[in-house]
């Protein structure tokens, strides 16, 4: 079948390479020096992106002498930093607050976003739905600003409560549009049939619409969850009580503002505490781990999530 048997001569090298790579016949593989250059660029980019994170993780486990001396990569390891941090309490409180915020916030955001999206999916049949949709879309092009939002949260008595980090941002207009687009492309016959059978609007939503929309709901859940986990400024703005701080504020205090981590000061008759730098690294790692844990699941979906919103939204 191949042309080499027809002509009886071996194919030129570049044609053989092209075939091996599965390229279309008009595309020639690039010359070696271009390939080398590209490989170099890719290696540099990957190192720039990944090495800082790997370094921080490694240093959080570094033995005290190496951490104090400052090395490019530690070779001796110790768990002391994590032990001290979990004994200290402040970081644990921060992690607990963030966990609560992420779980409760994501559940509520998802519930309110998807119900609104279903309510606005049939703007032609529901009087007033179009007006509400326009009202929601308009919020994507302006925002009231920091001070009016602060005054509102204060007036509602939400200051110093973790609810202040959930309620004002409960529904993202952008996410609502993405879910609505998905709902509008669901098979209409199925829903119509359910209506004919006498199923109510809520029954249809809970039994048919939501189960069919698992992929988009997964993406939105993960986007919301990442947002709640990463909450920093709103917490700074609305929460003064350090017992209520989410992990990002705790991290900022210990790593950037230079507040001393409890347990990092030497105490008489006790073994010397791990150096401040390993403790800081360990706090960074603890604040990052949940993101790293959901990331592989996130990755399966997020191209779809970004594109449905960006192109159709």
């Amino acid at each position, binding site marked *: 079948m191949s042309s080499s048997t027809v002509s009886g001569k071996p194919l030129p090298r570049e044609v053989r390479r092209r075939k091996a790579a599965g390229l279309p016949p008009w595309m020639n593989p690039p010359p070696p020096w271009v390939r080398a250059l590209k490989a170099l660029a890719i290696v540099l980019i990957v190192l720039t992106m990944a090495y800082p994170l790997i370094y921080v993780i490694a240093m959080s486990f570094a033995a005290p002498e190496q951490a104090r001396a400052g090395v490019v990569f530690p070779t001796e390891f110790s768990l002391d930093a994590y032990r001290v941090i979990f004994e200290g309490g402040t970081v644990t409180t921060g992690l607990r607050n963030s966990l609560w915020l992420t779980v409760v916030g994501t559940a509520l955001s998802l519930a309110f*976003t998807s119900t609104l999206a279903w309510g606005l999916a049939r703007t032609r049949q529901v009087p007033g739905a179009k007006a509400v949709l326009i009202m929601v879309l308009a919020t994507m092009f302006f925002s009231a600003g920091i001070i009016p939002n602060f005054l509102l949260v204060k007036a509602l008595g939400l200051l110093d409560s973790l609810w202040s980090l959930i309620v004002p941002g409960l529904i993202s207009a952008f996410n609502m549009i993405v879910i609505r687009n998905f709902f509008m492309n669901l098979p209409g016959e199925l829903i119509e049939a359910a209506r004919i059978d006498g199923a109510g609007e809520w029954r249809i939503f809970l039994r048919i619409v939501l189960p069919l929309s698992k992929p988009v709901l997964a993406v939105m859940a993960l986007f919301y969850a990442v947002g709640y986990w990463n909450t920093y400024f709103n917490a700074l703005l609305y929460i003064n009580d350090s017992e209520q701080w989410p992990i990002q504020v705790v991290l900022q205090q210990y790593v950037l503002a230079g507040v001393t981590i409890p347990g990092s000061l030497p105490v008489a008759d006790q073994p010397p505490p791990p150096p401040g730098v390993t403790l800081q690294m360990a706090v960074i790692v603890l604040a990052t781990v949940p993101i790293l844990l959901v990331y592989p699941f996130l990755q399966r979906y997020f191209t779809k999530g970004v594109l449905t919103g960006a192109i159709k939204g």
Partner: protein
Amino acid sequence: MSTPTATDTRVEDAARPAPPRRRLTLRQRIWRERWTYTFIIPGALFFLVFAYVPMLGNVVAFQDYTPFRGFGGSPWVGLANFNALFSDPELLIALRNTLIIAALQLVLAFPAPIALALLLDSLMSSRVRRMVQTVVYLPHFLSWVIVISVWQQVFGGGGLVSAVIDGFDIMTNADTFKLLVVAQAVWKDCGWGTIIFFAAIAGIPQDRYEAAAIDGAGAWQRMRHVTLPGLVPVATLLLILNIGSILTVGFEQLLLQQPMVGMEAAEVLDTFVYFRGVLGGEWGIATAAGLFKGVIGTVLVLAANKFAKRLGGEGIF
């Protein structure tokens, strides 16, 4: 967006069961959809209370507001807050920094994802490409607190680089700070930004490449004359969106680093509002600054959209 099953009817088009021939009155239509409103009302109320009520809060910009007296009791001062604002030297610093950083972002950070997408697209092995994508998307999901903490540990005093080069510390250098801000933004979001360009590249018909190749165009020329023009619509759209948020330059990023480099280098409009209003208690001036920023942002996005349409491209609305 792909439809889960092979059907043509969409939810939007699906008729109600046995639609009556006669036209329903508005009241009847509302009654028929009464359960649908239980879906709409909570969300609509949310947007009214948390997006539109705060808009009213902007009246503070025209008042000598104190929280004790409230909106009703604070005296109206007309444009006095705006007068005070525009003669404030700190605002000028904030405005200048905002514009410089925005310009640098536009020139240096905006093209970065396009370049990265082109590079990754030109890779032969899709396995390598997926691996690289996994790595470069990740920083997008890290908070600014984490990103800056990590940078501090790598590029700050006593960090990784200073272990090799003695005394190296770019995190506290006020002169190069604006470039540092752009570099951090590229590190965090350049990879993520490629997703949308990949989609655009995937949408370019293969026969265009084939035709170009038959006409003798090499790989480089195909990229310049086929791929790049294919990216123009998406790039325009993103540019419009970016211009609308030109006065919003990495608020958390700058707020977090201001203590390290000082106000002169790192004050932008948003940090000005935060420090003056929430911390300084000058509610009127801070709100005026926020309102100024909001209005300019909205005007810019509308203008950019109109401009894009006039150039023959597609706007976003």
